[in-house]
């Protein structure tokens, strides 16, 4: 049986960041990816400035092939049912519009970890010395790797997480996000920005932006509703209200499940013993639904925690949890109403954009936001969020008791 230092499941940005830290420290690291690389990935591809910086600092200048057209995004524009709009530029300038298929593969290659693609993770079993990881190459026999640590960087429906907590994904609300691509007839939406709608009728998460000459119409909602109906409704709304004239959607539409709640209510999952969960599998998601920068940073923290654990001969889980606290603060702060009002937790200046509007518009807009937030009432997050805000104010941190 082959013995390695660390096995990472998933070949995403989180995996590349973890792999980078591990390989630099001289640890033998193997990445298991169920698809053949480079693989397609559903994503808006709009990265935050923090994530952009991380990519450059750790993997070097971005090559052109890892970007879509337009290559950059200046910021976000919010639209409201009252037909008010507000645009905010990202702090520090435009950010990359990543082509995830190539961006992820590039980052993985730059990490210099060994990759086994077309290989699915099947199960893991840990004892005090290590983790036995069973996997199977497509069409081949199952095989086992003996690793000192296992990192699950395998996304919102993480099989590694499921191997630790089989019922986890049933216990949290899961959302579906899907996007369709349209040839453009006429689109007045500024292609330099990512557009987001605070509109309760449109759904929990509604967005649009330009990509490679087409316009994306994206919808997000609680699992159980019909994608095509929701999409048709949103596309019609865009046409009627914003004058967005699009041809019928092309055939290459796509969608995936998202775990959207844990960042709001500080219920992250970080693993058990020698198995670490990282990236979006933990529940990290920024407020505009951007998970890539959290993935990069949490992945790096998972990697550095293993290096620290081995260096100091200490259990890795407590180290990981101490180290990840900063990322928890950063991410949950973005949902914390007190922080939104009085600090600047986001990478664009929401309060400034708001204050630049006339008072009357501001009031209308806040009312619109309130109606939108009520859409989330059924998840009963409000009281938890309020408690967390006070907790953060009083003790300067979020409790770790809720983490799995």
């Amino acid at each position, binding site marked *: 049986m082959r013995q390695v230092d660390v096995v990472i499941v998933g070949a995403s940005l989180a995996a590349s960041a973890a792999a*980078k*830290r591990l*390989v*630099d*420290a*001289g640890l033998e690291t193997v990445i298991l990816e169920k698809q053949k690389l480079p693989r397609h990935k559903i994503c808006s591809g709009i990265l935050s*400035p*923090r994530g*952009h*910086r991380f990519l*450059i*600092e*750790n*993997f*070097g*200048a*971005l*090559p*052109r092939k890892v*970007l879509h057209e337009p*290559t*950059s995004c200046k910021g976000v524009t919010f639209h409201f049912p009252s037909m008010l709009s507000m645009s905010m530029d990202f702090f*520090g*300038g*435009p*950010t*990359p519009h990543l082509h995830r298929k190539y961006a992820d593969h590039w980052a993985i290659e*730059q990490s*210099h970890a060994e990759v086994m693609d077309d290989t699915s993770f099947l199960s893991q079993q840990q004892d005090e010395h290590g983790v036995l990881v069973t996997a199977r190459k497509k069409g081949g026999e199952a095989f086992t790797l003996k690793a000192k640590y296992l990192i699950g960087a395998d996304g919102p429906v993480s099989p590694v997480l499921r191997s630790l907590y089989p019922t986890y994904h049933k216990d949290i609300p899961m959302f579906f996000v899907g996007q369709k691509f349209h040839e453009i007839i006429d689109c007045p939406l500024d292609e330099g920005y990512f557009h987001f709608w605070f509109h309760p009728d449109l759904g929990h998460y509604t967005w649009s932006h330009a990509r490679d000459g087409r316009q994306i119409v994206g919808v997000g909602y609680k699992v159980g509703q019909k994608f095509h109906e929701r999409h048709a409704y949103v596309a019609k709304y865009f046409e009627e209200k914003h004058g967005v004239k699009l041809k019928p959607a092309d055939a290459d539409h796509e969608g995936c499940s998202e775990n959207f709640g844990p960042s709001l209510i500080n219920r992250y999952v970080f693993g058990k013993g020698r198995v670490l969960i990282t990236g979006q599998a933990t529940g990290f998601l920024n407020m505009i639904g951007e998970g890539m920068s959290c993935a990069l*940073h949490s992945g*790096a*923290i998972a990697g*550095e*925690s293993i*290096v620290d654990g081995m*260096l100091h001969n200490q259990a890795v889980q407590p180290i990981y949890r*101490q*180290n*990840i*606290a*900063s*990322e928890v603060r950063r991410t949950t702060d973005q949902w914390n109403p007190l922080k939104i009002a009085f600090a600047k937790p986001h990478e664009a200046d929401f309060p400034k954009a708001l204050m630049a509007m006339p008072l009357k518009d501001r009031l209308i807009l806040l009312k619109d936001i309130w109606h939108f937030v009520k859409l989330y009432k059924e998840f009963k997050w409000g009281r938890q969020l309020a408690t967390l805000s006070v907790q953060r104010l009083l003790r*300067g941190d979020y409790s770790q008791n809720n983490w799995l």
Partner: protein
Amino acid sequence: MRISSLPKDVVAEDSLQGIPRQQTNPTRWQGEQWHDFVQALQDAGIAIRDKHFQTGVYITDAGGLAHGLPHGVVVATSAEHIANLMQLAQQFEVPVTTRGGGLTTEGESVAFGGVLLDMTGMSRVLSIDKDALIVRTQAGIFWHHLAETLRRDGLDYLSAPLNLTSSVGGTLGVGGIDVNSSKHGCSADQVLSLQVVTPTGEIVECSDAENSALFERVILGYGQFGIITEATLKIRPYTPLRMHYFYYSSLRPCVEDLLMLDQSQSCDYTGMLTMMDSAITLLVAFDSEERETAFMAYYQERLRGYGELGFALRLAANFSWRPWKWKEALFLLQRKRELFPDLEPAHHIQDGQMYDRAAVFSKAVWKHWGDRQMVIPDLATNADKIVAVVERGNAVCRKYFPYYTLYCVGIRLRDEHQSHYELSSIPSDAKGFAYGCEFEPMYHGQVYSRDSLQSFKNEIYDVGVDLETSYYRFGGMMKGYIRQALGDDVVEKHLKLKQAADPAMILNRDVIF
């Protein structure tokens, strides 16, 4: 016209504030030629340590943010030994990273694969000329060891970093600041001549008179143009120290007073050290009674700082009407109780004078400021910008940490050394004096990830981008800023020189280029 050899930012010209950022966590060298290289080393009689337990101790530096494992470690024994190593490393294109005390904070002495050359094997003082006040020493020696040797003859170095387990060679390669830098300049200014092993393995003696071009590049050159193996330094007679502290409740007047004192050259030692941003210490000290008396007669009353008692009363009054700040008051009391005895330990004080500041300061620094990781981003500026730098850097610290220290000193610039400063941290717009301010968190039992500490450092460095300053700790993880501070012309010029001097680009690569 574009001069930069860096790839164009394909995202957008103004991304990340338009700073041409570079990969600062270098890609690990993959070791293709390693086995042949090791064989060649063995044939040449050079011992290499390549077991994990031997290389693992070099995995990080004092900064603790960059982690990289070398393929093997060579402990330096002589210039000839290093020259042999460098010739083979050029031939096999194996990266060589030099390390003295490992007190870098940006990963400069961390090897992302390849050979780590441990210079501490060369740590002897070779000769002392008491009449000419000159010492010749091997460069892997630590400053405290050099100080001990000099003390036997009643002598002292001019200036050395407060962390005395840094090596002489490493310090000369980057600068080195001390509380007397406002009088003597940076540590690298005391060098008269050097023995250097070039990246291609030649042993060359150089100074301002002999091989001056190499000398200019090696001094403050971040280890790019050669490995310093021996150094001849100017020294001085040893003097005990007459210390005084003044206390301030805000940063601006303290920094302004520091500037005023440096301009006047009325003190032999000056520096600003904060306990909190509302409790700031201005340290002044003197080598002689005459200097002390002259200062007390004229400058003392011109300072806006308070004495210890006056400041304590002021603080007490301040906290009494802001009782919710009791935690800060407790912190200051605790700090005073712990710190002050160590800054003036009875066994080092005689007749009100401190004997051996080297021992006292270096111990106090490690005990009260050095933590698990030395995270000390800094900004270097001319005299005009230092107040703004201190205030804005302080705001960043406050955002990240409940407790932190700012350490600010002036550095006298030597006109005759202008040519040494070209690719250094000395701000090009500084005249007469440069100022450096370090921003150091105190962790207070709290654990921070490397990742979050790096974010803190980036934010400090971004203040520098905004205010167009330089940085004392160029190197490694912040090399993305060097072009911003020095301009593409200077960096490209030196890159060309580097490519000519080090064809395989193996010596301390990834540090600034």
